[in-house]
């Protein structure tokens, strides 16, 4: 995994509302970042490193929301409902999401459908990191949200211990309408380009285990 002192992790650009992720100690440590715009960006919802006009940002967000291609990532039973949502009755193609990419490089985000085992966990993280920014994550089903009833030796109790999650869709499995509502919430975030660069944040669970 990447070195915590690498340039990417040294300057996390976290949007507002997530101030709890950066404790006072974190901010103090970052206070010796040389550029003033870095400190400013920590408190504002900007695309890091690039200053573009708000209208262009809105246009990009609008365009992305109608063509958000998730990574094909069905881990367990929720994948069946994800396929059903992509099927003819509850058609994801109406929202431009029917193209579920098999390669993370070509994806805009992932729908984690199903429980993640401890053996699969590093692979989930690797795939998440391989998706190019901006990216969003939807945790589908109770297992991806919290581990559901599997509070056992081999199941990760919610994939938000590993990767930042934007939308949680509870259910076992969630009906296609429920997943659709979750995807609508996700598309709202995509349209506003909110939390698009969460992948750059330090994830405390992984920093604590030394990654």
């Amino acid at each position, binding site marked *: 995994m990447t070195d915590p002192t690498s340039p990417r992790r040294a300057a996390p650009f976290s949007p507002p509302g997530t101030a709890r992720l950066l404790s006072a100690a974190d901010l103090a440590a970052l206070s010796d970042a040389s550029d003033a715009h870095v400190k400013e960006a920590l408190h504002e919802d900007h695309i890091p490193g690039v200053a573009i006009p708000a209208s262009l940002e809105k246009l990009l967000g609008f365009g992305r929301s109608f063509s958000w291609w998730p990574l094909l990532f069905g881990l367990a039973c929720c994948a069946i409902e994800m396929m059903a949502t992509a099927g003819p009755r509850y058609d994801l193609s109406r929202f431009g999401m029917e193209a579920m990419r098999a390669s993370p490089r070509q994806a805009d985000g992932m729908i984690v459908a199903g429980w993640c085992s401890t053996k699969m966990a590093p692979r989930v993280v690797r795939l998440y990191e391989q998706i190019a920014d901006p990216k969003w994550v939807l945790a589908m089903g109770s297992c991806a949200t919290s581990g559901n009833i599997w509070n056992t030796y081999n199941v990760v109790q919610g994939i938000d211990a590993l990767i930042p999650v934007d939308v949680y869709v509870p259910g076992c499995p969630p009906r296609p309408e429920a997943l659709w509502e979750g995807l609508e919430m996700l598309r709202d975030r995509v349209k506003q380009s909110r939390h698009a660069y969460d992948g750059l944040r330090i994830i*405390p*669970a992984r920093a604590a285990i030394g990654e």
Partner: protein
Amino acid sequence: MEARQENVEIPEALQVVFAKLEEEFGDTFLGSSFFRGELTFTVSVDDYVAVATFCKESPDLAFERLDCLLGNHYPKRADAPFEVVLHLTSVSRNTRLRLKIPLAEGQKIPTISGVWASADWDEREAWEMFGIEFQGHPNLIRLLTTEDFVGFPLRKDFPVRGTVGGRIRTDLKGKI
């Protein structure tokens, strides 16, 4: 042969299986039963490979398929807490058979991956989950758990809840 239910007709095909096995290994079996249409033999460790090979290769029995090989743990059974269970299927004869092999703590059992190749991974899983060691197995390493896992999870004394032996820190959940 005892049928646990009264007045139950044992199917002819299974009667043939029973007769052939009794003829070959009669007094070495530890037990047998017929319950709800299923025939079970309890076999000792010493005769296990011979019985399994006979089941597969005898033209009358012809159990070509090992559906699964399972481990089991009965902590209340003091003399033989562990058990290996085989489910055999004969596709050509349309019969099924179960073999149970009781094991003491730490007792080793020979492998039958030479008889049915699918036993290879089944035995790896039984070792990983129960700690039952299979002698002569070509590759007895873990199959389903992470590399740094400690413990035998499906034993009855392994804690049911919590990531015991695993690596993901659930106490950090929700701190993102």
